[in-house]
């Protein structure tokens, strides 16, 4: 029943609505025509759009194809290209690095070589300068002490030594020591050649030959320069019997015994020996007997790794001195003329140098005994002339203790009988202390008490010395400074 009612209602409403719009049917047709035109236009536009999309799709497909082809090509070509280029790059880099390393090596080599070329030791010749100033006070004047320096306060530039050394050729080296010193009396600087010698370096049979002007090897300290001594002044006995430094013009041969133990033998000949005494009279004609002949034999013993003993013996002979020193006036008014010079000596050094800290601690005891036996022509006060040999003895002994790298102290004892009058005796006692700021700058304070016996005619003397020695330029640690 409900269904019937609903159906009838719908038919009624439909009939009613058809009746309402029957009047505007033309309008409705017109509207429909317009809508249809619009729809046709839209369809046309859509068709155009569709065509466009189709074209775009086609383009995309073509592009994709192209990309794929390109990718394929890239895949095919890329591996070979990249490996070649990377290998090339690598090899180029390696080459560059190698070149840089080579250049660096060359630069380093050049730098090293350049550094070596400016070394003092590479100069030809190497040059060094040593200066030494002595400030002193002596209680007595020179007339009463026999010294060549005045009493009282004194400042003395004892030496300015110019050292030069170099190889001559593969077979020899040469060196020169020129010394400027203030004259003892005038104060004027005098310049002299202390040493100028050539020394062989490649002789067979352990031989070395030295010729020229040099300090002849005699004893322990005679052939050491003043500034290298362990105390301020050369021991009296060396001044008396040798004449200070053992300077000579001549030739010297040294031989090292070819055995396992150290034995060194030196012999030499020269026309003078001793730096401070007037040399032999040049004379009219000099025989070989007018020359000085000397020799030294030395050895060495390691008693323990820290303790060593170094003995030696020396001899000097001048058969015909040819008035060495001229006529020598004596206190009693007589004069002596030296005719033959004979000197022998024995020496040793006993050293304690602990290996571990030898730069800071050591103890050295050095002693040398000399016996002079010169023959003189005596011109007595009463006018008589006769021949006389004078035998005299002298020695020095010193003990130096190094207790710090910069500090050492010691004591020197000396005794000498006059070479012309053995009754005249002199003693010296010298404590000293050394402050070495470095290898090249050294100060030393020394007190010396000199005592003479009555026969000498001289007075006892107290003296205080301050020595300041310095080195600039090239320096070497010589064998004799060991």
């Amino acid at each position, binding site marked *: 029943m409900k269904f019937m009612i609903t159906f009838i209602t719908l038919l009624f409403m439909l009939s009613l609505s058809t009746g309402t719009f029957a009047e505007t049917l033309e309008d409705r047709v017109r509207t429909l025509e317009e809508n249809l035109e619009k729809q046709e236009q839209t369809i046309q536009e859509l068709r155009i759009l569709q065509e466009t999309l189709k074209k775009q799709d086609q383009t995309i497909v073509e592009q994709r194809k192209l990309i794929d082809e390109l990718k394929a090509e890239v895949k095919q070509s890329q591996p070979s290209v990249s490996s070649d280029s990377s290998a090339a790059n690598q090899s180029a880099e390696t080459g560059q690095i190698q070149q840089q390393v080579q250049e660096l090596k060359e630069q380093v080599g050049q730098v090293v070589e350049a550094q070596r070329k400016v070394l003092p030791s590479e100069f030809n010749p190497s040059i060094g300068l040593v200066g030494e100033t002595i400030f002193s006070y002596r209680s007595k004047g020179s007339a009463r002490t026999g010294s060549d320096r005045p009493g009282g306060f004194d400042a003395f530039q004892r030496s300015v030594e110019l050292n030069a050394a170099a190889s001559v050729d593969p077979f020899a080296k040469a060196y020169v020591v020129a010394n400027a010193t203030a004259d003892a009396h005038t104060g004027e600087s005098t310049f002299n050649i202390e040493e100028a010698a050539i020394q062989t370096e490649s002789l067979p049979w352990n031989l070395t030959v030295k010729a020229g002007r040099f300090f002849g090897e005699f004893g322990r300290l005679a052939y050491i320069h003043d500034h290298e001594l362990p105390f301020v002044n050369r021991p009296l006995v060396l001044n008396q019997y040798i004449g200070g430094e053992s300077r000579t013009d001549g030739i010297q041969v040294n031989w090292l015994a070819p055995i396992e*133990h150290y034995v060194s033998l030196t012999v030499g000949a020269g026309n003078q020996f001793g730096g401070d005494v007037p040399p032999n009279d040049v004379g009219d004609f000099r025989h070989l007997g007018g020359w000085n002949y000397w020799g030294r*034999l030395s050895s060495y013993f390691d008693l323990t790794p820290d303790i060593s003993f170094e003995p030696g013996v020396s001899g000097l002979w001048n058969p015909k001195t040819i008035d060495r020193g001229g006529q020598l006036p004596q206190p009693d008014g007589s004069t002596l003329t030296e005719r033959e010079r004979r000197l022998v000596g024995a020496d040793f050094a006993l050293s304690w140098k602990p290996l571990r800290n030898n730069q800071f601690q050591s103890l050295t005891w050095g002693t040398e005994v000399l016996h002079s036996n010169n023959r003189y022509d005596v011109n007595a006060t009463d006018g008589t002339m006769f021949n006389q040999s004078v035998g005299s003895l002298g020695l020095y002994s010193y003990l130096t203790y190094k207790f710090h790298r910069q500090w050492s102290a010691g004591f020197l004892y000396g005794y000498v009988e006059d070479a012309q009058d053995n009754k005249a005796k002199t003693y010296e006692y010298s404590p000293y202390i050394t402050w070495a700021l470095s290898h090249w700058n050294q100060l030393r304070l020394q007190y010396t008490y000199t005592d003479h016996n009555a026969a000498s005619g001289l007075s006892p003397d107290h003296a205080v010395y301050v020595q300041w020695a310095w080195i600039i330029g090239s320096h070497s640690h010589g064998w004799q400074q060991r």
Partner: protein
Amino acid sequence: MKLKPLCLYLIILLIGVLCMGVMPGHAAKISVVTTLTDLADFSRAVGGELVEVHSLATGVEDTHGVPMKPSFVPIMNRADLMVLVGFDCEHAFLPALLEASKNPRIQYGRAGYVDCSQGIVPRDVPRTTGHSAGDVHPYGNPHYTLDPVSAKIAIENIYNALVEFAPQYKAQFKRNRDAYLAKLNAKIAEWEKEMKPLKGVKFVSYHEHWPYFAARFGMDYFGTIELRPGIDPTARHIEELVASMKAQHVPIVVREPQFPEKVPKRIAEQTGATMITLPIMPGGVPNTETYIKMMDYIVHTMVNAVQSRK
């Protein structure tokens, strides 16, 4: 009569010489003399049974202050090779000994003069050789053997010299050298591993012994107690060193055994640093008879000192 004591002295001297100087027959071995003990160790390692090696230093000396003993002269007189550190390390004793030896084979420039510094790139080459800089080494710092890699160059130089002197034994020398280098290389790797934690750690020493060592193991070499090489410290220098060590927290003071303990110990106390004693060549302290043992000792002591502070 006065000559009698002298004659007696001479006779005693000659008898002494004859008793002590009787020479046994020459050995057929190659005679190698080295200045320092590390070079002697290398020479023995490379030369093996073919060489007889003698070192002038025993190991406890200052490398620059080996005493010039005349007893060295006969040994050097018979030497076939004279092996030295170079860089002027031995200038205080070797030139005079060489001259006294009268052995032309080992003089400077000859084949027997084996300068182990050949090929070493020097450190601390001074700009000036003036003494205002102290007792400087004009060629550069000579303590390169404390760097084990640089030590290999010294070994190579010794090998080359031995081969040049006795080429018939080249194979043996090569075998010995390679065996030693293999052992040394293994130890170097070990030492580098042990020292790795010490990279950048600062230290001072008495003398300037350690620039090559510090560079090898990456340590910071802060300074020296000596004012300049070979010049003892002044009070002002010590004062400044202590102040800078405190400011920079330097933990280690190295004292080489040939130098007195007093000053390094005082500096260590004032700065709170640890003082250690390190050898600079084999034999410098007990149980360091060989180079490898010495480097072992140095590395272990250094590492222990740093680690014990943590």
